[in-house]
């Protein structure tokens, strides 16, 4: 963990009184509390920092150690503890041991949301974690499994076909551990789905543009069109206009958590006007225009 200047984090002077620290913390906590800032990673991070700062600065013992050792305050205490241990006789009695264990656990107890004995023993829910999973459009359309590593633990999740870009799913209890017996936080996964070179998604429907030449548009014919399940042949009716939209039922995106249901695929025809006409072609078009 990076070193955090706790006084700076709370925006108070090093000489601040306990009341000033409490007031500064309250003010910032009301602004940055995760419950008030859903899906705001920056606010969550800052809230952790001010919590940590408050936990240390609101406890006179911890504050003293922090003021004394600064950046290395945790290690400083360890050194002091080690030094005390060395001075301890080998056959020390239980009384001394009990004292040092208590002191040790207080000091090294979780800083996030921990509270001293004099305070209300709040059971804090663990921190919520946020992560992103990048998927291609074709991956998003197939139910598949992925493994995530959170806090060193592997979590295997099943991603149902049809997830949308920006969709968030919650894995309950897979966030940070709770404090004082509180429940674990949740893991929020945001899906980021890359654009596809051919298909544009609109909910469960897909859109694509297909170029057809002028002659096919005027006289009719056939065109091969790419779909998610391979190519299909479409009949182009004579006198098809530019921008004509054709619906291919059930060839769109799978509907989220509804197996076997699919949206539609909309094909928009874009008619390509021929270029670099030969003299003969020009003459024929001119003749045609005079009919």
């Amino acid at each position, binding site marked *: 963990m990076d070193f955090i200047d706790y006084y700076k984090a709370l925006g108070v002077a090093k000489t601040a009184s306990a009341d000033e620290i409490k007031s500064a913390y309250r003010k910032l906590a009301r602004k940055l509390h995760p419950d008030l800032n*859903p899906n705001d990673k920056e606010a969550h991070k800052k809230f952790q920092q001010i919590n940590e700062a408050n936990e240390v600065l609101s406890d006179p013992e911890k504050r003293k150690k922090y003021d004394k050792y600064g950046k290395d305050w945790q290690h400083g205490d360890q050194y002091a503890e080690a030094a005390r241990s060395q001075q301890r006789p080998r056959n020390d009695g239980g009384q001394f041991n009990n004292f040092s264990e208590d002191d040790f656990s207080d000091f090294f107890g979780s800083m996030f949301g921990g509270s001293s004995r004099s305070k209300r023993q*709040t059971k804090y829910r663990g921190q919520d974690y946020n992560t992103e999973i990048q998927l291609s459009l074709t991956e998003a359309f197939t139910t598949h499994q992925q493994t995530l590593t959170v806090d060193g633990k592997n979590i295997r999740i099943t991603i149902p076909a049809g997830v949308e*870009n920006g969709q968030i799913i919650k894995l309950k209890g897979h966030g940070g551990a709770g404090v004082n017996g509180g429940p674990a936080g949740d893991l929020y996964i945001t899906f980021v789905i890359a654009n596809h070179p051919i298909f*544009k998604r609109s909910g469960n429907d897909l859109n694509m543009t297909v170029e057809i030449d002028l002659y096919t548009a005027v006289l009719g014919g056939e065109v091969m069109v790419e779909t998610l399940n391979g190519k299909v042949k479409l009949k182009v009716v004579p006198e098809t206009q530019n921008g004509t939209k054709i619906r291919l039922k059930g060839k769109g995106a799978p509907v989220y958590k509804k197996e076997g249901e699919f949206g539609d695929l909309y094909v928009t025809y874009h008619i390509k006007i021929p270029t670099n006409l030969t003299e003969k072609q020009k003459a024929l078009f001119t003749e045609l225009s005079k009919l």
Partner: protein
Amino acid sequence: MSAHTDLIDINEFCIYHNVEISFIHSLHQSGLLDIVVVKETVFIQPEELEHLEKLARLHYDLDINLEGIETIAYLLEKVTRLQDEMTAIKNKMRLYDVSE
């Protein structure tokens, strides 16, 4: 948890979270929490638990009174709705994205 295994006894909730029972009643009276009363025992539905924990944190951790919680609950609902709307609009915008 009594015979109503699906429901959460608010007495247990209050002990576990160190919350006063009057707070739960106040939340209910102001329409912020749905409760279920079975044989004079007050319960909440399991899906309300997370919501209630959030309200308790706002009150006990941030010292926000009931009126403040009501306002926050309303605004948070609005924020969530706007975030969902923004995601839907962003997805629509991708239809017209010609940068790729």
